[in-house]
């Protein structure tokens, strides 16, 4: 996912930025203080980054994310940039975009948030030690407070990008399931088949109708066979959905054949008083295919000789 796209989907505009800055209580004084600490930060960048990676490389759970020396060199370089980014005194949309990139990168390599947050604690400890060693006590305390605000701000963005990436994955899976639940098959030129399996609720019925109609027009199919042998329950609602689909298919200029009607289903439909006489209905799929071929002027014949 592009950062710009993420900014848009997280609604990260000037207003959202202002509200986050207010909530994390980051003041101009904080930003000025951080920017005045930059020389100190620069002096200690290397050792802090080293200390940080000692933790990450010292545990097998996180060690595996760093395949070789080249990768380690590269991530250390990125880490230096990230670290010094805390001391620019700038907190604008460009900064936010840069920080989102960090979360997206972690998500991409599959680093779970627990290690991200855990490693951040080490980071804070390393910074605190340097501040206490180099500054008078009150100044060190103030500096640490300012730093902590910005670090939490960053962490919130990283978590946001994790959540967004998970949401994307979820939507992809749902789309895949939707596609699998309406496998429209072309059995012959001009004849389509949709074997229905499982439960048909209103949402799925809509998907079925949509998929059927689109395929009929795409393939210019004259007949669609709906096989309901695998449908768990056929009640008034399901029958109504099937009737609606039949009516819509007719509007396109095609016909529907309903097959796979068991004795149980036939009984239920009549007992419920549902009129499905507008549909061609048959018990077996094989008969449905024969009828479909008949409707398009073809037939299955035995070979002579």
């Amino acid at each position, binding site marked *: 996912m592009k950062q710009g796209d993420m900014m848009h989907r997280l609604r990260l505009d000037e207003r959202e930025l202002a509200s986050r800055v207010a909530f994390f209580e980051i003041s101009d004084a904080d930003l000025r203080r951080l920017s005045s600490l930059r020389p100190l930060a620069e002096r200690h960048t290397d050792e802090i980054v080293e200390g940080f990676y000692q933790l990450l490389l010292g545990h097998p759970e996180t060690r595996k994310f760093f395949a070789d020396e080249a990768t380690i060199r590269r991530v250390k370089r990125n880490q230096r940039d990230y670290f010094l980014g805390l001391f620019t005194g700038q907190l604008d949309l460009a900064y936010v975009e840069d920080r989102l990139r960090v979360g997206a990168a972690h998500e991409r390599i599959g680093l779970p948030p627990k290690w991200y947050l855990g490693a951040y604690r080490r980071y804070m400890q390393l910074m605190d030690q340097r501040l206490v060693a180099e500054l008078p006590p009150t100044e060190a305390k103030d500096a640490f407070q300012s730093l902590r605000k910005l670090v939490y701000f960053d962490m919130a963005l990283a978590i946001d990008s994790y959540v967004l990436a998970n949401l994307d994955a979820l939507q992809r899976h749902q789309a895949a399931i939707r596609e699998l639940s309406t496998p429209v098959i072309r059995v012959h030129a001009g004849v389509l088949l949709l074997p229905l399996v499982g439960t048909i609720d209103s949402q799925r019925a809509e998907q079925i*109708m*949509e998929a059927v*109609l*689109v395929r*009929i*027009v795409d393939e*210019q*199919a*004259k007949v669609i066979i709906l096989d309901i042998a695998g449908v768990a329950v056929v009640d008034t609602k399901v029958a109504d959905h099937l009737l*609606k*689909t039949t*009516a*819509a*298919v*007719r*509007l*396109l*200029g*095609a016909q529907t054949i309903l097959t796979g009607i068991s004795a149980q289903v036939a009984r239920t439909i009549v007992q419920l008083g549902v009129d499905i006489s507008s549909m061609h209905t048959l018990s077996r799929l094989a008969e449905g295919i024969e009828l479909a071929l008949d409707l398009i002027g073809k037939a299955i014949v035995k070979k002579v000789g």
Partner: protein
Amino acid sequence: MRGSIPILRVGGNLLATVHIELRDKVAEAFQEDVLETIEKTGAAGLVVDISGLEVVDTYVARVLADTARMAKLMGARSVLVGMRPEVAATLVRMGYAMDGVATALNVDEALILLTAATERRI
């Protein structure tokens, strides 16, 4: 308004391609054009192609159904072709399935349907 929807002669049938929304004056003019052409040519069939319509509400659907009924009174069978999937889904959802109006997938199919019907009659 008259003549804004072209009506072509194809053999003994007429082909009207609706590419603008059938509202008020346009709908009225369309019906007049169709009936007048049937009267002049004695066409046995009418094919109305609506593949150009992205939206068909119940009003437009009723105009189309009425036109088919009027044509039938003058002895011309109508076939509606080219309805888009989303249009069909919407009409059915609104409970307007245009019962009684013959449909076909495309103009070719419609002409085959009309020819078969004419042959049966003779």
